[in-house]
């Protein structure tokens, strides 16, 4: 009877997800509802400043940008790229700083796991929550863009769920670094070494045709590039070329990143 128990399950086993994630998601929503308005201001003020400063300022110098066959106003070019960047940043901030607070500083996760909720479901809830925050931010910015008359493409309705997907991809990626972090300082590396270079290499601010060959080839495989390639045509009332390819790249990043993030988080909590 007292023989050795079966060996501890490995950290790389398949995710075991259930609807038990929902009250955890709801918890984050309830906290956020108390702080939504100041949080909204913070979330959309910066992207709008970029848009105004670069879009109208630089736009006056640049004029139009050649995009395939068509020439588009710089502000439209920038808006369609920077909205992807906003989704990326909003999801990343939430899945890094805020998730780390709950996981490590407040020990909220430990409390939750004393109830019948597994770590896998907690990680799923945090991932979806960060994606929801991204969607919320993006919705607010889209509203402002519509009001400014930057684009009136009906295909923007489709850009909305795509941007939720972009939020999901980046929240999965960020959760990997959340699992590895010893403190908030660690996240600076993620932003300066990963997200900031990607901002400049993914065609948000200028067409990727300007990039040297090797860098361009690398840029093809960056998640933000694939997000921009999907979203920008929708702003121009066009269908994205090779949508399935960009979608698959994002999906591959999402699945791989979630799996890795979950494994590393399991390792962190395995004590």
């Amino acid at each position, binding site marked *: *009877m*007292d*023989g*050795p*128990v079966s060996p*501890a*399950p490995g950290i790389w086993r398949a995710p075991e997800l259930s609807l*038990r994630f929902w*009250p*955890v998601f*709801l*918890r984050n929503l*309830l*906290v956020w509802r*108390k702080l939504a308005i100041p949080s909204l201001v913070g979330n959309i003020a910066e992207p709008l400043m970029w848009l105004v400063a670069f879009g109208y300022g630089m736009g006056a110098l640049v004029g139009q940008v050649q995009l395939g066959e068509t020439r588009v106003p710089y502000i439209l070019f920038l808006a369609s790229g920077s909205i992807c960047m906003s989704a990326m940043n909003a999801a990343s901030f939430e899945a890094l700083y805020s998730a780390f607070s709950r996981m490590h500083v*407040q*020990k*909220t996760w*430990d*409390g*939750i*796991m*004393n*109830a*019948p*909720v*597994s770590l896998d479901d907690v990680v799923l809830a945090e991932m979806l929550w960060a994606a929801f925050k991204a969607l919320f931010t993006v919705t607010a910015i889209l509203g402002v863009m519509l009001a400014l008359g930057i684009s009136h493409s009906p295909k923007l309705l489709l850009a909305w769920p795509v941007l939720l997907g972009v939020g999901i991809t980046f929240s999965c990626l960020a959760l990997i670094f959340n699992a590895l972090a010893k403190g908030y300082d660690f996240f600076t590396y993620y932003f300066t070494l990963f997200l900031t270079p990607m901002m400049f290499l993914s065609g948000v601010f200028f067409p990727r045709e300007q990039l040297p060959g090797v860098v361009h080839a690398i840029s093809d495989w960056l998640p933000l590039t694939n997000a921009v390639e999907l979203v920008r045509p929708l702003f121009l009332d066009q269908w994205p070329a090779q949508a399935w390819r960009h979608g698959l790249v994002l999906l591959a990043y999402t699945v791989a990143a979630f799996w890795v993030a979950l494994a590393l988080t399991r390792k962190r*909590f*395995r*004590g």
Partner: protein
Amino acid sequence: MATPILSVQGLSKRYGSNAVVNDVSFAIEPGECLGVIGPNGAGKTTTIRMCLGLTAPDAGRITYSLAGHSTAETLQMPQDALAIKARLGVVSQFDTLDPDFSCAENLLVYGRYFRMKDGAIRARIPQLLEFAALSHKAKVKPGELSGGMRRRLSLARALVNDPQLLLLDEPTTGLDPQARHLMWERLQLLLQQGKSILLTTHFMDEAERLCTRLLVLDHGRKIAEGTPRNLIEQYLEPDVVEVYGVGALALADSALKALAARVEVSGETVFFYTPDAQPLLQALAAQPQLRTLHRPANLEDLFLKLTGRQIREDG
């Protein structure tokens, strides 16, 4: 004898070459309060974490027998972790309350993790707050509460699902005496209601007051088990005479030694353990410069005898 509500057999956990928990077995009968005592690093918290499925044991079985909807079900940790936790109440060593929520919201949000309906939780909140003596603080956030209030809120939160068994890891550490007494009163109330409790503690008066039985752990091993009274009778002489003051240390090697069954020195104090203190006290009366304290042997003496007096800092 009834089926134990929790039965642990041959539980072991190693970290590298360090056996943190080493072949520990124990059981909790329904309605019982089992106390786990031991110095820092004895394996108390690791044992609780394994009972919660948070740490995977290297060997051993953890079986719960918790009443289900109709009959008692036998459940194994870690396979049935979620089904077990649905019927457990847990207070961990450090508070994990949500700082952004009021006391009432903390209870509501926690109840949802048990798949309870909002209406059912809301109906329970007033009595839970009253139990925690926090009715007047329903809308206050944990950051504005005292340490004792926060611990009581943690206890109330652990009761949201009306559990049969509570696992409490050092529930009164860091509290002032008033707050500790109130906590003890509440735990006694729960025992009277028929709940079972597994409790780890550093406080021997807490163990003596609350626990039906005690488990003494040291270096990951179980070194003694029994009711507080039986343990004291089994391991100790009934009387203790403590002597301190100028020249006290010299007594440890004097003729007085023959009047005691056992003599111990700690710091500036000499402890005489004896079945009959009278001859010793009469002899000591000849040295009025010494201060003496005559008292019955207690759990603290037992604890120090079993685990030694050296400081453990590897918490």
